[in-house]
Structure formats: structure tokens, C-alpha cells
């Protein structure tokens, strides 16, 4: 009988399982934190490391780097998954943690484009690839390790703690960024303060490595190794043998692809939508997401536990279906609640301030317009026009170089802020439904000898590629509805079609082909 199939009713065994969960979760949480500070600071990174001449290209370049971080994840899954099935889970996910921490720390130290030119974006790009590679190896290892320590019938519950780490990692990233930004001030944060969240990572990783070094190897892997049953070639066994390949495909198309898009829509796209489509002020938008994430996180454990009782499939499929149906209505309410066209301005409270300054050979005119609305919403528009003081030089510049930089910020009153938190929370609940049970589902459909390799690939293609591309593809879909440069998009909700389509296909495939039965996961 496999070692995990045991009675864990004794206090000692429960304590031991809890220690395994805690040690695995802390490391995985830090890896997610490392990974997400890059995405969350995409705009600043774009300004620091990519040429400023074309802001759209710079932002897209960052998004591409962001996507590269995701696209490389399946390769990390293959590389480290193979190692994990050959030499063991413990040492493999220890290595991924060190690579991740080192890369994140290094990003915080890379000089900007102004200092070292093209080398800056090139180095950042390479470090981002290393981050993706490390994350590709981490998650499968942690999920496998915890599942192989968990008793039968409680695997959904115990692995759900690993599932909370992705959201908590994002929460931690947002929290650290907000605290540093508020402490240093917006300007200093933009100049060098943004480096602190990256540099901080090295201390977090050091603590996590220390904890993980003290952990023992997975009991199922130890048993299998002792019996000489480990796979000689996990890659070939996982993807060349039809019986395993068909499970890899069903895991990808019927579960992880849909889960990936629901995950990214509910968390990253929601933040991007609040900031770019609704123009919600930076701190308020981040607070809305952070509070929703914090309230929603325990539901990962609730749905993980519930999946032990009623099966993984029903919960994951319900999450996808409800998300597909509810996305458009939810985002319509979010957009309308922040849309100034639906509000009545208190005209007498309008305030316009103009500041003139000369910086070197340039003249900078800043116009700040503040408007207040009857429902308590405030709107601040900052227009910065920069041009050479010398009229001849000014006349020689092309029109697009003279175009003023405009920043719009909407601050919602308390009642609408709470409503926004509620609307994001609903999306986080969808995330917990599809993501809470998925680690247990993935580890249970593959045998121990190739589990790390086999489960890592569909997870990282689904979550990393299908999910990770949500910001890029959704932004593009919205842009396609823009009637002309400078005009608002005709359909600001068009970006939702990508997650809706992928989650719909995943729902149909998952409902038809995935089994709701729980596998005993014997070696």
C-alpha cells in the first residue's frame, strides 16, 4: 500500500502534513510574488528599459516581454519536470526557487536604457525568461510534493493551500508596490523606488530556501526509487505514449486552458480594465483588487475541500460556465459605474490650474483640471505639454512630438468603490472554483513516475500561454474597435471575447470528456 494511503488522524501526522504544506506554500508564494511584480510594474519597466519615443511600442514591448515570461514557462515545465521525475521533487523545486529569486533580484539592479542603451532591455528580457523557466518548474513540483504527502480523500483540501499562493503572490506584489510607492512618493518611486520590490525578493527567497532545505523527499517518490520504478525518460513516456498523451491533452483543453483565462481575467484583466478603460486612479484600483483578492482567497480552500466530497470536475466546470455567462454583465456594470457620461457634474466645483516651467531648453506647461460629480466621483485630468522654448526648434518638430501627455484619473465614492470590490470579488470566486481543485485533479490523472513532467506541461501551457496572453490579446481586441487614433474604443468590453471563447471550448471539452472520479494515485 502506498505510503500516502494512511490514517492521518494522529496529531503527529497532521502536524507533519501541515509543515509540508507551509514549507511548500511559502516558497511557491514567493515565486509568484517575484513573477508578478514585473507584470504589475509593466508601465514603469517600459519607461525605464525601452525607448520612450513611441509609448505604445514601449508598452507592447513590455507586454511581449511579459508574454515571453509566460511562453517560456512550458519549457521550464519540461526541463524541471524531467529532473523532478529523475532525481526527486525536493531538490528540483529548490533549484527553481534560487533561479527565480536571483533573476528577480538582478532585474532590480539592471541600469536603465538611458545608461546602458540596448543592453538594458536585452538583459531584462533574458532575466524575464529565466523567471519564466523557474516558475515552469516550481508549481508542478510543489503541487506534486504536497499531493504525495496528502492522504487519500483529502488531496483537494491540502493542495488547495498551494493554489492560494498564486493569488496571495499577486496580493503581496500589489501590497509591497503600494507601500513602497506611498512611502517614497510617486516621483521617487518612478525614478528608482520601483527597484525595491525586486531587490526585496532575495531576502524572501533566502528564508524560503532555508525552510525547504530542511524538508524530506516525497514519500511516494522515495518508495518508487527504492523499488527501482522511476522512469528512465519521463519526457518520452509522458508525451510519446498514447495513454499519457491523451491525458495531457484532456488536461490542457478541458481544464487548464479555461482555468488560465478565467484566472487572468478575474485578476489581471480586471485591474487593467479598471485602470485603462475606467481610468480609476492607481491606488484606488489596486486597493479594489487587493481587497477582493484577500476576501476571495479562502474560497480556494473551500472549493478544494468541496472537490474531495463531490469531485473536481463539477466545480471546475461550474466555475467556467458561470464566468462565461457573467463576464459581459459584470464588466458592463463596472464600465457604466465609472463612466463620467452617466454622471452629473457639479459645475461650480470645477477647478483648473495651469503651471508653467522651463526645464533646460524645454518649456513645460501642466494643466490640471479637477471635476466633482453629484454622486461623489472626482475626476482629475493632467495635461503636460512639453516643447522647446526656441520657436524655430518648436516649428521644426513633427506634430506627434508636440502632442501633450494626458493622464485621466477617476476616484470613486465609497458606495461605488464597495460595489467595484464586490464585482471583482465575484470574478475571484470564479477563479477559486476553477483553480482550487485543479492541482489535485492534475496530480491524480498521471502516474507517480512521470507526474512532475506530465502535469507541469498542460498546467503551464493552459495557465501561462492561454492565460498569460489575456492582457495582450484582450488589449488588441479593444484597440481593434477604436474608430481612429485618439478616439475612445467603440466596444471597451471587446477584450472579453478571448477569455469567453477559450473558457467556453474548455467547458464543453471538460464536461464531455473529463471523469469526475478521483484517482487513488498509487505509485
Amino acid at each position, binding site marked *: 500500500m502506498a505510503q500516502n494511503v494512511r490514517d492521518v488522524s494522529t496529531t503527529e501526522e497532521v502536524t507533519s502534513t501541515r509543515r509540508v504544506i507551509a514549507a511548500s506554500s511559502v516558497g511557491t508564494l514567493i515565486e509568484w510574488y517575484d513573477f508578478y511584480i514585473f507584470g504589475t510594474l509593466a508601465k514603469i519597466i517600459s519607461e525605464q528599459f525601452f525607448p520612450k519615443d*513611441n509609448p*505604445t*511600442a514601449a508598452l*507592447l*514591448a513590455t507586454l*511581449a516581454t511579459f*508574454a515571453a515570461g509566460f*511562453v517560456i514557462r512550458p519549457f521550464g515545465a519540461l526541463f524541471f519536470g524531467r529532473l523532478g521525475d529523475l532525481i526527486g521533487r525536493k531538490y528540483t523545486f529548490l533549484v527553481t526557487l534560487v533561479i527565480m529569486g536571483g533573476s528577480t533580484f538582478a532585474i532590480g539592479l539592471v541600469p536603465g536604457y538611458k545608461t546602458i542603451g540596448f543592453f538594458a532591455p536585452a538583459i531584462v528580457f533574458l532575466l524575464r525568461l529565466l523567471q519564466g523557466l523557474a516558475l515552469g518548474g516550481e508549481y508542478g513540483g510543489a503541487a506534486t510534493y504536497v499531493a504525495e504527502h496528502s492522504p487519500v480523500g483529502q488531496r483537494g483540501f491540502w493542495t488547495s493551500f498551494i493554489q492560494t499562493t498564486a493569488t496571495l503572490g499577486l496580493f503581496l506584489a500589489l501590497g509591497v508596490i503600494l507601500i513602497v510607492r506611498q512611502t517614497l512618493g510617486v516621483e521617487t518611486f518612478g525614478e528608482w523606488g520601483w527597484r525595491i520590490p525586486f531587490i526585496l525578493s532575495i531576502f524572501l527567497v533566502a528564508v524560503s530556501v532555508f525552510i525547504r532545505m530542511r524538508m524530506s523527499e516525497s514519500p511516494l517518490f522515495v518508495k518508487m526509487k527504492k523499488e527501482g520504478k522511476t522512469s528512465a525518460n519521463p519526457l518520452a513516456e509522458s508525451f510519446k505514449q*498514447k495513454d499519457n*498523451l*491523451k491525458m495531457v*491533452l*484532456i488536461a*490542457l*483543453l478541458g481544464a487548464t486552458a479555461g482555468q488560465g483565462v478565467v484566472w487572468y481575467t478575474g485578476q489581471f484583466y480586471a485591474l487593467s480594465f479598471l485602470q485603462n478603460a475606467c481610468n480609476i486612479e492607481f491606488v484606488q484600483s489596486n486597493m479594489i483588487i487587493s481587497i477582493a483578492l484577500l476576501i476571495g482567497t479562502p474560497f480556494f480552500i473551500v472549493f478544494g475541500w468541496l472537490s474531495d466530497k463531490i*469531485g473536481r*470536475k463539477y466545480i471546475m466546470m461550474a466555475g467556467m460556465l458561470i464566468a462565461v455567462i457573467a463576464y459581459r454583465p459584470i464588466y458592463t456594470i463596472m464600465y457604466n459605474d465609472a463612466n463620467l457620461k452617466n454622471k452629473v457634474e457639479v459645475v461650480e466645483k470645477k477647478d483648473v490650474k495651469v503651471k508653467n516651467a522651463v526645464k533646460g531648453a524645454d518649456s513645460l506647461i501642466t494643466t490640471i483640471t479637477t471635476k466633482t460629480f453629484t454622486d461623489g466621483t472626482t475626476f482629475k485630468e493632467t495635461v503636460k505639454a512639453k516643447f522647446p522654448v526656441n520657436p524655430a526648434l518648436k516649428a521644426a518638430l513633427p506634430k506627434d512630438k508636440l502632442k501633450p501627455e494626458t493622464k485621466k484619473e477617476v476616484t470613486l465614492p465609497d458606495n461605488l468603490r464597495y460595489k467595484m470590490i464586490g464585482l471583482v470579488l465575484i470574478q475571484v470566486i470564479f477563479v477559486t472554483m476553477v483553480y482550487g481543485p485543479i492541482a489535485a485533479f492534475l496530480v491524480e490523472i498521471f502516474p507517480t513516475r512521470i507526474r512532475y513532467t506530465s502535469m507541469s506541461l498542460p498546467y503551464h*501551457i493552459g495557465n501561462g*500561454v*492561454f492565460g498569460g*496572453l489575456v492582457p*495582450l*490579446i484582450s488589449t*488588441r481586441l479593444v484597440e481593434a474597435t477604436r474608430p481612429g487614433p485618439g478616439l475612445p474604443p467603440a466596444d471597451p468590453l471587446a477584450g472579453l471575447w478571448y477569455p469567453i471563447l477559450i473558457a467556453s*471550448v474548455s467547458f*464543453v*471539452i471538460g464536461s*464531455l*470528456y*473529463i*471523469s*469526475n*472520479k478521483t484517482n487513488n494515485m498509487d505509485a
Partner: protein
Amino acid sequence: MSAIKRIFGIVWALMGVGIVPLVIKQAMKEIAAKPSEENWIFWSIVIVVLMPIIAFSLITFGVFALKGEYDTLEDV
């Protein structure tokens, strides 16, 4: 249930085959209309990364389903 699984196998395989010319045609159309750097980056990611994954996985999955490889995975 097995018959439905098999019939849908044809749908998945056809979707996998159909997505390739659809994406390439759209990419060519948009790049020709506006050959900007951002257009090239976007379509390169879609064509090199996303499209092959979708096409390969849907076609292979569809063929497996059509052959009845998933008939035994019952849950009710």
C-alpha cells in the same frame, strides 16, 4: 455518450485545422493594412506560439476522441 464524444472529435479536429488559415489570413490582412512594429510583434506571438498549440492539441485530441480513446472515461 461515447457516440457524442466521437462525433465531437470531428468538430475538434476540424477546428484545429480551420484555425490555421483563418489566423494567417487575418494576420496578413492586418499587417498589410498597417505594417507597424506592434502589429508584427502581436501576430508573431499569435502565429508562432498560440496557433500551433491550439491547432496541434485540437487536431490530436479530436483524432483520439474520434477513435474512441476517451470512451472509457465515464463519470456518471
